[in-house]
Structures are given as C-alpha cells and as structure tokens.
C-alpha cells in the first residue's frame, strides 16, 4: 500500500530549487522575537517521488473519467478537457482581480456574456457571478431578499419555508442570515402540499426555498400556484437551481413565478467537481431585487471608434448595484469556473435545450430498464419507485425497502456492491422522505450501452447471494470504512510519535 507523504524524509538542507533572493540580510528587518524557531515538519521529497505519490493516490480515486457516476442531485456529467486548456491561459491564470478595467476587457466580456446567458435561461433580469458555490448562492439570494424586505419596512418577516425534501443547504443558508425555518411536509406522492403551504405562510413569511424538479426528480405541476400563495402572503420565491439541468429551454424559474435563483456551474455547466470543489453558484434575480446584488457586476456601453479592445464594439466595466449588499467573496467569484462554463456554454449555444432533453431521456430510459428486469432472473425483491410519476426529469429515486424486508440487504449495501461492479454509488438516503432511498442521475453524457449494462448489473446484485452484498465492497482499494471508528478516535493529522500503522 501507499504510505503517507510524511514517509519521505530526504535531505534536511534541500528544498525546491529557487533563484537566490535579490538582496541579502533582509531578515535583519524582522525583530528576533518574531522569527520562526522551528520550520514546519513538511515532507522532504523530490519531484519524482511526489509525482509517483500523487499518481498512486489518484489511482485510488474514482471520477467520471473512471466510470459511470450516477450520483443523484450532483449532475456528474463529462468535464470537457477544452475547459482545462483554456484556464491555463495567462489571460486568466495570471490576472489580478484589482487590475484596471482596461487590462481585463476580455474577462469582463466573458462575465457579461455569462450574466446575459444565465438571465435568459432562467427568466431573470440580473445575474451576479460572485457566489463561489451553490450554498453561497442561496445565502447571497436570501441576503438580497432580506434587504428587500427591510427597505420596504417589512424587516419583521423572519421565517423561511422549505419543504422537508429540500437540500440541507436551503435551511442552513437561510439560518445563517438569521431566519427561522418552517419545514412543511410533502404530499404522499412527494410533491408539494399546497394546503400545508397555505397554513405555513403569513405576514412573517420572508421567502420559500424550493427546487423544481423536486429532489425526487419530479416536476411540480403546481409550482405557479405555490408561488402565488407565497407572493400573496408577501413572501419571495427562491429557486434552488441544483436541478436546473432538467429544464433548460423547456421552462424557466421566471415563468414558474420565482424571484431569485441560483445556478450550479459545477453541475449544469461542467465545471469539474474536483473532489468537492471548486464550485460556482451565480444567482439571478428579478428586477425588484437587482439593486441589492453583490458588487461588482459586469456592464458595457458602446465604445467610441476603435476603442473596443475585444473587437465587438463595446467597452466593458464594473458596476456597483445601487443598494448592494456588498461582497460575499472578496474578489469577483470563481472566475476560472466562469471561464470553463463559458467554454461549455459556447458548445451548445441556443441548443442547450438538447442537453436537457438528453439528460431527461437518459434518466427515463435508465429508470425504465432498471424497473423492467429480465423475467428469467431470480430477483429477491424489486425496489419501489420513490415517486409514482409517468415521466421523471433528470433523476429518479428508488426505495430498497422491499429488499431490506426480504433479506436484510439495505440501500447502503446495494450502493457499496455497485462499487465492486465499477460504478460510483448513487446518492444514498436522500431525500429522507423515501425509505432506503437510492437516487440516480445519469446525465446526458452516458451512452445507451452504459445505461443498459448498469441496469443489468443492478439486477445481478438484486439476485445475488445476500451475504456477498452485505459484506461488499470486495474489490475496492479498501473494504467498508468504519466511520464510527474515525469519529471516536479523531486522528485528523499525521503524528510522527504515533507511528501510523
């Protein structure tokens, strides 16, 4: 097995080769008492050792490039390598956010184009690209809504409504703004319960946060009615854009009645997930919220003859919204993610609709083949649909409860066994309203053959000796990891004295 990086203990006197300092004795400017007494115990390794160390680590990591990654709610689509090539350009990698506008016309033009595109796709009026993750987008939009209410003298509105099937970030983000959370139950089919909503709203309602399609992958047909209920109570409607991949060009949050929306560029627009980030979570808002957006936004005006540095006839500049909430990230957001997503958008242009069509086609197809196994197979128990819908959108849920009742095999066991077959597991136990839930999202970038084979392997697991499934995974770099042991022992860093096993 690979040891840790701290096993490398080369020369004590050498580090990464660097040119000499441009002057000597600079250290004398620092008072003796401030100087570091003992250097950090970092590894002492050469480049060849480190390249091999990290390559070997990468081989113990599963990505979309490795295999099918049907992780529901995360939109694990292919990440085009063009994106990575473009962000190595010094015109983005070697740019400082405080450079004068004249030095970043190209970047501003890309920001402007992305703001416009995202506004069009969502039916919103203004967009900021500053929030650097979906959760931060939620936080930013709720901050704008908070200032909107305060300006209207309705700062007493202190409640935010979320369905019980909402992503955990929704209540967490609203709570960070100081709001109390009202969780309303879903109807028995997993959809929004309008009666529950009616009894939850009141003159203390600041906003409702909801995603559509829902976390069950099903479109909420009564979303416009829900928006009307919230608006009539004086609240604002917030659209969690985690599931935006399902609807581009088919409908948009503006038409559904939303006032604010966040986008996940790392889901819908192919910014790589990078093992947990970076993300990018721009938000779009309707006109009445625009003046509260974080500063700055990209703007433009027609340039005088020959003044347009990017050659499109415009001069680009930063603008500060009239009553801006200020900043949520200290610069202009994850510009690198914006540029990658711009490259992705350019591939599709007005055909972004095809992307959503194929995401939905693949989800429905996978659901169909998974729910229709070869009758010859001796399957112990078929899962139940998480939501009885004729068609789903980009993802769907299955309840493994029947299998658990039949022979004790849980959703988690099936998920772990899928790892043995060379797949990433689906999202596990979310939404919590579906018992033994597995959530699948194939995305538009998987072929029919992959989906067919996955369904076949899933059925094979359902027909397998339960003991094999219960003790899985068997072929992964390590067996099932003991999370309780980790939480009990809390070994959160390397310690030489402990001599790791």
């Amino acid at each position, binding site marked *: 097995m690979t040891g840790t990086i701290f096993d490398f203990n080369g020369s004590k006197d050498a580090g990464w080769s660097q040119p000499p300092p441009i002057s000597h004795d600079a250290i004398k400017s620092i008072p003796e008492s401030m100087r570091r007494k003992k250097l950090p115990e970092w590894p002492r390794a050469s480049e060849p050792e480190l390249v091999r160390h990290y390559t070997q680590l990468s081989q113990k990591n599963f990505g979309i490039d490795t295999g099918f990654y049907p992780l529901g709610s995360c939109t694990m689509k292919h990440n085009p390598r063009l994106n990575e090539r473009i962000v190595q350009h010094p015109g983005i990698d070697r*740019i400082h956010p405080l*450079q004068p506008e004249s030095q970043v016309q190209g970047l501003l033009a890309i920001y402007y184009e992305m703001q416009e595109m995202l506004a069009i796709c969502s039916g919103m009026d203004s967009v900021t690209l500053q929030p650097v993750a979906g959760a931060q987008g939620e936080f930013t939009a709720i901050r704008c809504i908070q200032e909107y209410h305060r300006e209207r003298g309705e700062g007493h509105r202190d409640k935010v409504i979320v369905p019980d099937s909402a992503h955990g970030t929704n209540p967490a983000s609203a709570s960070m703004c100081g709001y109390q959370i009202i969780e309303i139950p879903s109807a028995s089919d997993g959809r929004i319960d309008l009666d529950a909503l009616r009894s939850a709203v009141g003159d203390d309602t600041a906003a409702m946060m909801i995603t559509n399609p829902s976390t069950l992958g099903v479109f909420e047909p009564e979303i416009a009615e829900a928006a009307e209920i919230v608006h009539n109570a004086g609240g604002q409607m917030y659209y969690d854009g985690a599931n935006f991949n399902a609807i581009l060009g088919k409908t948009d949050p503006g038409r559904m009645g939303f006032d604010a929306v966040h986008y996940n560029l790392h889901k819908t627009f192919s910014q790589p997930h990078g093992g947990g980030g970076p993300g990018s979570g721009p938000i779009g808002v309707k006109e009445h919220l625009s003046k509260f957006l974080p500063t700055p936004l990209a703007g433009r005006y027609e340039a005088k003859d020959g003044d347009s540095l990017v050659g499109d006839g415009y001069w680009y500049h930063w603008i500060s919204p009239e009553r801006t909430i200020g900043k949520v990230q200290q610069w202009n957001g994850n510009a690198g993610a914006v540029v990658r997503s711009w490259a992705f958008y350019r591939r599709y242009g007005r055909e972004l609709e095809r992307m959503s069509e194929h995401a939905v086609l693949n989800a429905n197809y996978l659901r169909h083949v998974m729910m229709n196994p070869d009758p010859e197979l001796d399957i112990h128990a078929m899962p139940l649909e998480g939501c009885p819908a004729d068609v789903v959108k980009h993802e769907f849920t299955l309840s493994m409860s029947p299998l658990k009742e039949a022979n004790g095999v849980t959703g988690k066991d099936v998920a772990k066994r899928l790892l043995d077959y060379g797949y990433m597991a689906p999202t596990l136990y979310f939404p919590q309203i579906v018992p033994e839930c597995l959530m699948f999202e194939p995305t538009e970038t998987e072929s029919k053959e992959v989906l067919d084979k996955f369904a076949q392997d899933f059925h094979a697991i359902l027909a397998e000796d339960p003991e094999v499934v219960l003790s899985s995974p068997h072929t992964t770099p390590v067996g099932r990891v003991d999370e309780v042991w980790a939480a009990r022992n809390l070994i959160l860093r390397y310690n030489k004295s402990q001599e790791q096993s």
Partner: protein
Amino acid sequence: MDQLPNLGREQEMLEIMGLKSMDDLFDDIPEKIRSEGPLPLRAPQSEEEIIRDAQKLLGANVNLDSRPSFLSAGLARNFVPSMVPMIATRGEFLTSYTPYQPEVSQGMLQAMWEFQTMISELVELPISNVSMYDASTSAAEAITCAVRVKSKKVEKPNTVFISELVPPHRLSVIENYTQGVGIEIMKLPHGSDGLLDLEMASSAFGSCAVYVEQPNSFGILDEGLMRLREIVGEKTAIIVGVDVTTLGLIEPPGNWGADIVVGEGQPFGIGPTAGGPIYGIFACTKDFLRLMPGRIVGQSIDTNGKTAYTLTLSTREQHIRRHRATSNICSNETLIALMGAMHMALLGPVGLEQLSTRVLASTIQTMNEISSLEGVDLAFPDSPVFREFAIKIPGLARDALSHMDNLGVTAGFDLGNWWGDKSSWILVGCDERTSESDISALKEGLSSWMEALE
C-alpha cells in the same frame, strides 16, 4: 453536439420506453409555464472555434507576467511548479465528487488528510479543515464559530473586535456573514505607526473574539500582536489572518496564543486566477473542533483493520444537521487545496524558508530603492514589512498609477479605493519574482510622473 453519445438514437430509446417523441418526456410541464420557441442565444460552436474566441478574449487581458507588476493586496503573483497543475488535474482527482464513498475515494481523502497535516504544521495548531472558499469567508466563519463556542462563557456575548485595517472588501464579507445572527462587530484601532493600539485592545477583554491580520493591510508585521493573549485574557478567542508565505520566517500564530488561524492559501498552489478559484485555510485548537465549519478527513480502519481515510464529524454539516448546521458550506475548494498540498510538499521546509526569504528580500529591496526617490515617503518608515508597503506621493495615486500603466508598469494599488483619506497612497506589492529591472521600471515610472508634476 459532440458531448451527447445518444444523439440520433432518441427514437430507439423512446420506443423501448413506449413513448413516441421527446415531447412526451416534458408533457408534465403545464402549458402556461412552458418556454416559447428556442432560447435566444448564439449558435453552437466547435471546440476549434471556442479556442479561437477564448484566445482572442483572454489575449485582450494584460497578464501580470507580461510586465513589471507590483499589485498584490491579498493575492500573490507566485510561481507554481509545473507538476502541480499537471498532476492535480488527473481525471481521477478532477472529475470526482466529494468523497462520500470512502472505499473508492481513498486518494483524495488521504491527500486532504496530508493537506490538513501540512496546514497544521504551518500555523502550529492541531486541527485543519480541507479548505474554505477564500480568506474572507474563512475569517467570517472563524468569527461565527468563535461566537458559537465562546458566547456562553464570556462577559460580552455576541461581541467581536476586529482590526480597523481589515480591508473593506473582506470586512463586507464578514458583515454579511455576521449581521443576521446578532453578532456585534467592534473595531480595534491602530496607531499612526500602523501598529495595533495595544492599550485600546484591552477593551476586547471579555468579548468572544478578536480578529487581527499579520501582516496587516499595509504589509506591516506587528510584533505587538504576540502579546494579545495577555491583553484580552484567556477566555477570548484570538483569530489571526495570515499571509501563508510569511510562515517560513515568522513565528506562527499557533505559538503565540492564536485559537484560529485563517488566510488565503493561494500563494501555495495556484495563480491569482482573477480572484478564484483560490482557497481559504482554516486551522484551530481542539476547543473549536465540534463547532467549526467545513469538511474534515479522519484516519480510520476498514473491515479488515487496514488503514483507511474518511470524512468525519459530518454531524456538524448541513446535509445532516440542516438549519442547525455549523455552516452551509459543502462544496469547498478541494482541488485547489490539493494543488496547495502538492506545492507545499515540493517546497519542503527548507524551500518554504527560501521562498519567504525571497519575498522579504524583494520587499526590502524595492522599499529601499523607492523610498530613496525625492517626494516619495514611506507611510510607516519604522515598521517591519512583508510583501507590501505603503508609500505617500505628491498627488493622486490614481493619476500616478495611470501614468505608469501607460508606460507598461502595474505599479501597485490605489489605497484611496479602500480609504478615502488615502488617495495619495500606493500599496506596492512584491513577490519572489520581483527583479532588479522591475524595480528600476517602477522607479523610473514614478520619477517621470513626479517630473511631469513640476
């Protein structure tokens, strides 16, 4: 359309499902909210065409390496070893999600556990998470975390004192993160020498936390901060924002009483990237562990007793605790932290010390040469500095910077943008790559502007 493997096979798949057309997949969307017609956007492009446009647009930007540049103000014009982007963007790292399935995510988990260790060693605190979004959100969430831990134990609950020199853009992030949860932000004043006024700092006694930066916004290394513990007492958390590059030479805050250390990790791992993606570091003592934000990797064992790694203490997080979570953060900056880990490992302890020494040497050399110009005054001539120093010039900083921009020199940052009374102040930023010829260009530029004034 080269991204869609099932293009042209829609009918075949629809028929298997018993559907007729793609429209059948969307007939659950009520008529009244359906889009009318295609999206009013541009035509699709091929990869070739996108590269052509990208080169044109990004080529219109003036990159920092193309000319003498002294713009820093919180980000570093660093040098990143070639290995870092090449190995960090291996597909297995780049295209993986948060490691919720540890059995097939050991690579990233171990790399992050090693990252935690290197950050812990760097700042001399026992705990580190796997990154925050940037220095500003790291500082903001350190403050909310400290309030959660300390509020019931101190005389001034919900009160935090922060240095008045925290720059406005970072302060704004802190205000957005603290305004809703009832935290009162008080300011700690600095003297005319740019150093924290230690006498006034005693007013923070009994509060939840103090937040100070080392070096501060003027690049000043403030020895007085090392006495903060005796001034604010044992109960108040000390949060220190650092320039990580100083720590090859400067005593880490963990050794002089800091409870939480935050900062921009960017000098290790990635270029300034127009401000993101970068990553914030967050390290703390054990007292803050259970109420801190962000993801943490712990060592564990698998069913065979073999060493393995997994995310731990997840019960603090939003996907479990929902509105009672310690933070809403989930996606963080893992891949950039991985780049940071690689860069730190390549440097090694000695390489870190050399890097710090180079930045310090560039700063001192530039400062000595620029301050020798008649008409240019150092704003704080008696305080030690790192990476940056402030100068006062006979006129508007804006005009001088624009003059030098026209000469092909990016001469620094106009401090009037942060503080209205400092419109004739320039913050000059140096780094390990500052050369003698860069300094000459800056000097000549400044001289020629001053000559033109006469």
